[in-house]
């Protein structure tokens, strides 16, 4: 029996279900509390900080030995920013750490923090992305006169000539408002000084312990070896927990300084205002079509608000560069003219968030497709049929190579499942009753599982990509795999165990996956960018193949058969076509305890493998049927369908779970969540009463169908699935709302499409009509 493809229950669940998980705050019970005093203003000069007598409070003046965070990107007109660990002389966004209080308990730390008085000369801030680009806008960083930290453009040589031949030009102006990834567990840092070794262990809820260790050691000027970073159970990350933040650095510094155990447990208000944001983008996109409704050229001006500082190590290039390179998505395009900018403002810094730019760029492209369909009098499926890529491999206009996918098939299947024709009849009838139904499609692809070759093209000084797995079988025949990836709820351990189990012919329950501890795992990049199953999975497969060869060799010796004729299955090794077998546990025992028999390869059973592919493209079609209440602007999602292709499903149950969670974050993006700043740069959405992730009541049943294209771009034939769920929903839902509101001529270009916004558009449209 093959384990790959089975929906086996996850191996770690019983621990979490019994409340025995170990999250950072659980480990930190009893540690001294760190409380940060944060800037209440968006931009200003610090004139003084008054500290209550007898309190232990640190400010910039106390930490001059810490270097600022300075992420580097090469090229792209990148302007580096120096982010201080505690604000030094000036503050640049609301929520920026200015001082740090240490006290015996969290309550006391908060009491003291309230008494730290900040004297700040308030300056006019730059908040909105477009306002910040104006010539007279306040300057966030002296070294970036136009507030642009990263800018690049591209224009294909034939663009102008083709553009001139356009039969139709469709333009959209897409505004995506700011979101917070909002993991259920907030960020944290629990640093423990070890008196016997002088080392520090940092327990922290992160997605990538090794790069975090590098970043901290660099700015503290300490050997990396003296710092152990542990990501214990991590309560969700979604990208928010993959960048280094001043708070982690300070925790390690102060643990060393005080030779103590300290903990910063972020509260939800801090998380909402001062943890990373994302998706604050403005796209102006024009598309030229020929008379057959074929897309012939695309022109785009992409502005991404990157907040006050560039993030380490990915840099603030992440959103603008992704937006530029991936905008055309699943559509065939040969002529492209694009300018993309990362704009700095006096707002919370941006970091990747599940989907990175693609929810927004997919919204841009899919709105274009719908508007163009109307222009040509085509239905949205036919419009897309004429433009989707159907031949693979496909080299994109920006130089990416698409491996095989099912762009058209996923759409065709979606239209079939939702019975597009039947729906149109139902829609017509409903309109006669004063009810407004709409259908929307969203086709996209997603670069996933990419390694160093792809990241290198981005020009980051710290170039992530590869993943390494160290594997050992112990004398009892159990396998331990140490991985550089750092899962935090994805169930990666279970998926990897299935892959390894198939290679070694043992049950997944005999496999232990070790992750999230820099003392115990090989250097790796962590879990993000829909990569871990592809990369750590690929490396696990390679390491397990080596292990299998070692076992075959030993079995061959014991069974007196050529190793290449040995088969491992069901916990035993046997010679193909022959009687007699030997338990794999016996092979393990022999490898360690009778190593003199086998020569070559040394004693024991350890292997190591690295996997570092260019990447593979997953794809999907998301579609939604909605009903809009025109009196209130409320949108009810009647059906939500995902037809996706992520290659082979290693564990279908886990794949569906990833899609479910992603889709609901995408629904939140489309309809609910928005971080709102006022014009002074104050955040109005600092609680979960104001920033509103949907509950079970707002979420429809999510229907899923799988297509499984076999790709050579991934050695497990699995593609990445982590982010796809979040990418499609905004476009599918916004297209559906616009379809529902056709009788009013309302088209939506802004997310989230909140009830007041929708109602406002309906009211304006009604006014125009009368």
């Amino acid at each position, binding site marked *: 029996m093959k384990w790959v493809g089975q929906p086996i229950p996850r191996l770690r669940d019983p621990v979490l279900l019994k409340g025995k998980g170990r999250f950072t705050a659980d480990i930190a019970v009893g540690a001294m509390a760190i409380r940060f005093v944060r800037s209440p203003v968006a931009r200003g000069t610090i004139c003084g900080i008054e500290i209550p007598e007898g309190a232990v409070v640190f400010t910039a003046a106390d930490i001059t030995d810490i270097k600022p965070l300075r992420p580097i990107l090469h090229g792209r007109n990148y302007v580096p920013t120096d982010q201080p660990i505690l604000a030094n002389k000036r503050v640049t966004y609301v929520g920026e750490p200015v001082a740090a209080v240490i006290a015996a308990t*969290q*309550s006391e730390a*908060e*009491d003291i923090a*309230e008494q730290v008085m900040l004297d700040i000369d308030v300056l006019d801030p730059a908040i909105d992305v477009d306002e910040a680009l104006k010539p007279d806008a306040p300057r966030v960083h002296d070294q970036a006169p136009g507030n642009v930290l990263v800018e690049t453009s591209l224009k294909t040589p034939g663009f102008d000539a083709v553009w001139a031949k356009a039969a139709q030009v469709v333009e959209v102006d897409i505004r995506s408002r700011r979101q917070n990834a909002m993991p259920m567990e907030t960020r944290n840092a629990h640093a423990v000084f070890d008196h016997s070794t002088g080392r520090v262990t940092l327990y922290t809820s992160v997605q990538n312990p090794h790069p975090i260790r590098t970043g901290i050691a660099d700015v503290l000027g300490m050997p990396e070896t003296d710092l152990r970073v542990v990501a214990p159970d991590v309560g969700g990350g979604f990208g928010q927990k993959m960048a280094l933040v001043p708070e982690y650095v300070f925790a390690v510094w102060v643990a060393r300084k005080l030779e103590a155990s300290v903990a910063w447990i972020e*509260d*939800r*208000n801090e998380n909402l205002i001062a943890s990373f944001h994302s998706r604050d983008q403005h796209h102006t996109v024009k598309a030229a079509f020929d008379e057959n409704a074929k897309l012939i050229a695309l022109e785009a001006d992409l502005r991404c608000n990157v907040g006050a500082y560039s993030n380490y190590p990915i840099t603030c290039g992440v959103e603008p560069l992704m937006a530029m390179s991936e905008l055309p998505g699943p559509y065939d395009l040969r002529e492209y003219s694009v300018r993309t900018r990362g704009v700095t403002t006096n707002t919370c810094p941006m970091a990747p968030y599940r989907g990175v730019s693609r929810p927004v760029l997919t919204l841009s492209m899919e709105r274009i497709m719908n508007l163009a369909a109307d222009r040509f009098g085509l239905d949205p499926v036919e419009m897309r049929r004429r433009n989707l890529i159907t031949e693979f491999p496909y080299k994109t206009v920006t130089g990416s190579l698409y491996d095989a996918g099912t762009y058209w098939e996923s759409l065709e299947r979606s239209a079939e499942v939702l019975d597009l024709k039947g729906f149109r009849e139902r829609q017509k009838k409903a309109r006669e009753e004063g009810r407004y139904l709409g259908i929307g499609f969203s086709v996209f692809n997603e670069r996933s599982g990419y390694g160093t070759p792809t990241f290198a093209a981005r020009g980051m000084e710290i170039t992530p990509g590869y993943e390494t797995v160290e594997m050992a079988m112990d004398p009892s025949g159990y396998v331990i795999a140490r991985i550089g990836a750092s899962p935090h709820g994805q169930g990666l351990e279970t998926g990897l165990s299935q892959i390894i189990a198939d290679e070694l012919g043992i049950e997944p329950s005999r496999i232990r996956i070790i992750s999230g501890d820099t003392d115990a795992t090989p250097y790796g990049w962590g879990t993000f960018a829909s990569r871990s199953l592809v990369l750590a999975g690929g490396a696990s497969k390679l390491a397990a193949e080596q292990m299998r060869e070692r076992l075959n060799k030993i079995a061959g010796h014991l069974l007196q058969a050529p190793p290449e004729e040995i088969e491992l299955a069901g916990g035993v090794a046997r010679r193909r076509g022959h009687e007699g077998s030997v338990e794999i546990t016996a092979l393990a025992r022999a490898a360690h305890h009778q190593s003199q028999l086998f020569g070559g390869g040394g004693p024991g059973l350890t292997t190591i493998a690295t996997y570092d592919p260019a990447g593979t493209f997953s794809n999907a079609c998301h579609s939604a049927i909605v009903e809009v209440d025109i*009196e*209130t*602007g*409320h949108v009810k999602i009647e059906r939500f369908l995902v037809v996706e292709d992520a290659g082979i499903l290693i564990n279908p149950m886990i794949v569906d779970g990833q899609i479910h969670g992603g889709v609901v974050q995408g629904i939140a993006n489309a309809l*609910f969540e928005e971080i*709102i700043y006022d014009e002074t740069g104050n955040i*109005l*959405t600092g*609680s979960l*009463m*104001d920033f*509103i992730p*949907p*509950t*079970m*009541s*707002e979420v429809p049943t999510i229907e899923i169908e799988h297509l499984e294209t076999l790709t050579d771009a991934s050695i497990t034939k699995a593609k990445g699935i982590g982010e796809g769920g979040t990418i499609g929903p905004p476009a599918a839902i916004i297209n559906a709302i616009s379809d529902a509101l056709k009788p009013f001529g309302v088209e939506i270009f802004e997310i989230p499409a*909140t*009830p*007041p916004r929708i*109602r*406002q558009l309906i*009211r304006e449209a009604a006014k125009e009509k009368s």
Partner: protein
Amino acid sequence: MKAPQFAYRAPRSIKEAVTALAESEGMGKILAGGQSLVPTMNFRLARPDMLIDINRISELDFARPENGKLRIGALTRHAAFERPFFEGPLARLLADVVQHIAHVPIRTRGTFTGSLAHADPASEWCLVACTLDAEMVAHSLEGERIIPAAEYFVTTLTTALTENELLVEARLPLLDDSWKHGFCEFNRRAGDFALSMSLVALKIENGRIAEARIGIGGVEDKPVRAPDAEAYLIGKTGEAADRVEAARLASEGIQPMDDMHAPADYRRDLTRAMVRRALERALAR
């Protein structure tokens, strides 16, 4: 997000409670369900010197119909209304409305009169009290005072209660069987505060509306009535055109709040829809 320090009192009688309240000299707060107060304290937006926890005062733990009124003691939790515990339209009305108040765990702890004392403009119970002309019974060292709803609600989070008064009870009129109610609210998520809501109670005699009570919440700084719409409906059958006109009158008679959740003109649109739908529901019963 930990609350600031406070002194804690857990009186066993109303007398002990109001004595403690007087001693706190305006710096004390009553802790009943705590479902609004405690989060505010965790955010350090409220910092009472003393909390007077009334949860151990057994004489406040009652809810019963008596002399044409429903008497609701200060320890009656929201959840008490989920399944009707007495006969009649009022029980049905309360069971309907309570489903919209926050969520199960909040309803387990939060109290009816606690909501009235907190006086959030979007509180469902405040809307009920306003629409049905409840009476609020307050105790202090000076004795008992009965405050009619029309005088009770002052503005956001402010009532006619003085700093020395404990709200011990609310009284709602028991409606006879000629009354029908309808409730409709709009919020972004299940359990969130309404951006607009309407509670309607209609007394129907011989197929016509003999008395109309239309309350609107979540729209102004306190729950309000729609007197023009109420007057308009008298003698009408409540057919579709009546409902539309009453809703129009109601929505034009308000001065809606304007905030990031809902601009004023949006709240007005919502109110028109909520009143009309509440009327539809009332008349469909």
